[in-house]
């Protein structure tokens, strides 16, 4: 058993977590940065293992210089003992212990490795939650064929291993994130047959103030669009993938164009040959830990469950701040600003004397949040995807639950919310614990129940006593927290 004691534990070493840790440490706080990844940077600044091949960060990364300077500074502070960097630590539980928190971690890049080292507990007086987000997926016919991957997964392979997932790729779904995925794959040698985008960026015209407030964001997107043009990648707006084709593995996709009412226009269906389909419908914030802590949540503009925070990034639980995608999906720039504000607020709670003038940061946060909100409204999930989800379409791949089973749980067995659908039909009960099918199950449940998706539906897949797989043998000897007495009655 290894134990560490710090003032502040930052959970997550992506853009938000790194910014929070650096801000707090520079203000004099002793910080531990805890992350499941082997190298810092999170999903956004995922980098290849040394020796994976020639790595030119500018080809795959935005703000790489900000990453390296933050990383260097954190390493320097680690040298002075101010910062403790804990990589490969999977947090499975955070429990209150007196006036501090016990952050329980399983060590190891792969938690099921045999002979993993002893468990680790970090004791901290304050917490910053910066757990990020993962790809949001929707079921459609054929999506379980080998060759269909998530957009984020395709990019992770590229960023983390410099491996291109296939030879001919279709990138599909919705949101500006599809563009860097397609661009990266094209740069590293894939033929990108098409980008199939369900919405149109022209809709940004409805949000002139949000766009003007964050000019850099639009420039970023224009840059990708220009490069895709040079790679001769067609970006098809208002198109969706209707079906993944193939028997043993993916051989192509059937796409169709949406009309003004959001329905597939008759006669527009056509096939595109490809061996990889990378698909993403935005992101789902990773909220197991804030829910364990009891942090209040809300449903954001994009339909995701997010942690509610105040002007200082403080959650509803005293001593716990949150930053980045966990508080609302908005990208790395917003995450960095929020992380910095959360780190400064946490440091200030210890009475740090000089945290400086943060008004510019707050203004920047306002404009980036405005842009994120506009983005979510420009790139909504097309209802047609759920309407076309037939009874035979697989929804939960771990437990092999199809959409018909979910429908019957609602209309025949009387489940009225996603938690009950999960109990009756098992979607979200398998290895991934609903990370892949949770959002879709919530949407399908609400649809069959004839009402909008509610917070409770989304919580059903994030509310977990154990946030990461933990070997029984380790749990059996986990130290700390002697048995409490009962109520004596």
């Amino acid at each position, binding site marked *: 058993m290894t134990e560490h004691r710090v003032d502040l534990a930052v959970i997550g070493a992506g853009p938000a977590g790194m910014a929070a840790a650096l801000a707090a440490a520079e203000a004099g706080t002793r910080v531990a940065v805890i992350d499941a990844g082997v190298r810092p940077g999170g999903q956004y600044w995922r980098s290849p293992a040394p020796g994976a091949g020639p790595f030119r960060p500018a080809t795959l990364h935005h703000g790489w210089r900000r990453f390296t300077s933050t990383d260097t500074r954190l390493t320097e502070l680690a040298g002075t003992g101010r910062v403790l960097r804990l990589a490969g630590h999977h947090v499975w539980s955070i*429990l209150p212990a007196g006036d501090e928190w016990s952050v329980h971690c399983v060590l190891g890049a792969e938690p099921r490795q045999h002979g993993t080292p002893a468990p680790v507990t970090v004791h901290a007086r304050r917490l910053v939650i910066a757990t990020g987000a993962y790809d949001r997926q929707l079921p459609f016919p054929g999506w379980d064929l080998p060759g269909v991957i998530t957009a984020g997964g395709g990019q992770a392979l590229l960023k983390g291993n410099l491996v291109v997932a296939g030879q001919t790729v279709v990138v599909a779904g919705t949101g500006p994130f599809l563009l860097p995925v397609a661009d990266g794959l094209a740069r590293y040698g894939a033929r990108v047959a098409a980008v199939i985008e369900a919405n149109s960026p022209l809709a940004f015209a409805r949000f002139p103030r949000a766009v003007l407030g964050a000019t850099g964001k639009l420039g970023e997107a224009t840059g990708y669009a220009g490069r895709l043009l040079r790679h001769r990648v067609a970006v098809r707006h208002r198109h969706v993938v209707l079906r993944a084709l193939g028997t043993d593995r993916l051989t192509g996709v059937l796409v169709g164009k949406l009309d003004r009412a959001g329905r597939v226009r008759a006669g527009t269906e056509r096939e595109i040959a490809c061996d990889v389909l990378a698909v993403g419908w935005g992101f789902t914030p990773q909220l197991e830990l804030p829910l364990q802590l009891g942090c209040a949540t809300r449903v954001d503009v994009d339909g995701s469950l997010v942690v509610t925070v105040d002007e200082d990034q403080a959650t509803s639980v005293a001593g716990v701040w949150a930053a980045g995608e966990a508080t609302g999906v908005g990208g790395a720039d917003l995450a960095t600003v929020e992380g910095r504000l959360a780190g400064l607020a946490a440091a200030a709670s210890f009475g740090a004397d000089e945290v400086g003038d943060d008004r510019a940061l707050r203004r920047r946060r306002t404009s980036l949040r405005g842009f994120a909100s506009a983005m979510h409204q420009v790139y909504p999930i097309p209802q047609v995807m759920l309407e076309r989800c037939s009874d035979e379409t697989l929804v939960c791949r771990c437990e092999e639950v199809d959409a018909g089973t979910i429908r019957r749980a609602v209309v025949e067995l*009387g489940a009225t*919310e996603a938690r*009950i659908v999960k109990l009756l039909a098992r979607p979200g*009960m398998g290895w991934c*614990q609903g990370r892949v099918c949770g959002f879709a199950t919530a949407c399908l449940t609400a649809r069959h129940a004839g009402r909008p998706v509610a917070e409770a539906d989304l919580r059903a897949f994030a509310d977990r006593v*154990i946030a990461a797989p933990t070997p029984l043998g380790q749990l059996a000897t986990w130290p700390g927290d002697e048995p*409490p007495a009962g109520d004596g009655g």
Partner: protein
Amino acid sequence: MPDRPPRTPTSTTSDLVVVGAGIVGAACAYHATRVGLSVTVVDSGPITGGTTGAGEGNILLSDKEPGPELDLALLSNRQWRSLADLPLDGTTFGRAVELETKGGLVVATGPAALAGLTRLAAQQRELGVEAIAVPGDRLPDFEPHLTDDVAGGYRYPQDMQVQPMLAAAHLLRLARRAGATVLTHEPVTGLLRDGERVTGVRTPRRDIPAGAVLNAAGTWAGEIAALAGVRVPVAPRRGYILVTEPLPPIIRHKVYLADYVADVASDSAALQTSTVVEGTGAGTVLIGASRERVGFDRTISLPALRQLAAGAVRLFPVLRDVAVIRAYRGFRPYCPDHLPVIGPDRRAPGLHHACGHEGAGIGLSLGTARLVAQSLIGEPPEIDLHPFRPDRFGPEVPR
């Protein structure tokens, strides 16, 4: 409340309003429709959303000491077996609710525990429970991965397991098909009275008049009783269950240590864990059972999780490197004398109870429902209800 939902007048009177859409309420609704009563079920939340949704699905005889609870368990066991064969939409009720007649295996670690188990088994056998002694060296024939550090055990072939949420949902569905109405997300906020008599329930949406009201509100049953001005001291007893990653079938029975019986019967409020391990059709292994009386505290208890894990690894060393992927907690409806509350309440005519089954509600639900239905239509109940009578606790005693 600024936006109170519109009140929907209910013109029809039900013979019975069942408060609670968990397994006990569902079973009672089903049995009531079977004897010809018109039924409305009402629950403050979704169906199977309380303790039923956090249960393992035990239908056990093995853990019952001779007495009224074992009588009720034997009645229930027969009910589950006969219901299992009921044809249902091209399959059977048993298959639809994943009823497994796999039997239990109770093991004792030392000679003293084995002697106690042997005594209990002898008493149970006199009452019709099948209990077959298994010497320590024969245990691997039944559970190849069981630790060899056990003195011996008993097989209980009548013990069963069911998927409790599916069981409740299907019982409610059968009741609906027989004309019952199920109202969810509608809390009972008051009782309709005619003098002493309870004549229905009130929710924020409507009044539901009824010939009788059945309190099947599980861990929350004390609050419903209080609406009638009577005391039924049901209290929460918290439990955790660990769920492993899916595995090939390596555990065949429901396997538990003999000290489970003593822990179930214990009056202590402090944390107790007794090891119960079983495989499921989905491949996961369920690990129970912790008991502690800490109110409705949802805080995660590291000691409880640790003791459960330690017990499982001790009983099945093969589980050491297996990952727990999920854990859940529930609040058992606990009565001070560990017996459920079943039958009419003399203190409030028209009010009946079916609650307080602690950790055995899934198994005992069908027997309870049969007794309730018999009592509602004026037939003599198959089992004497006296030990389960609602007024046995007396007035509240300050602690």
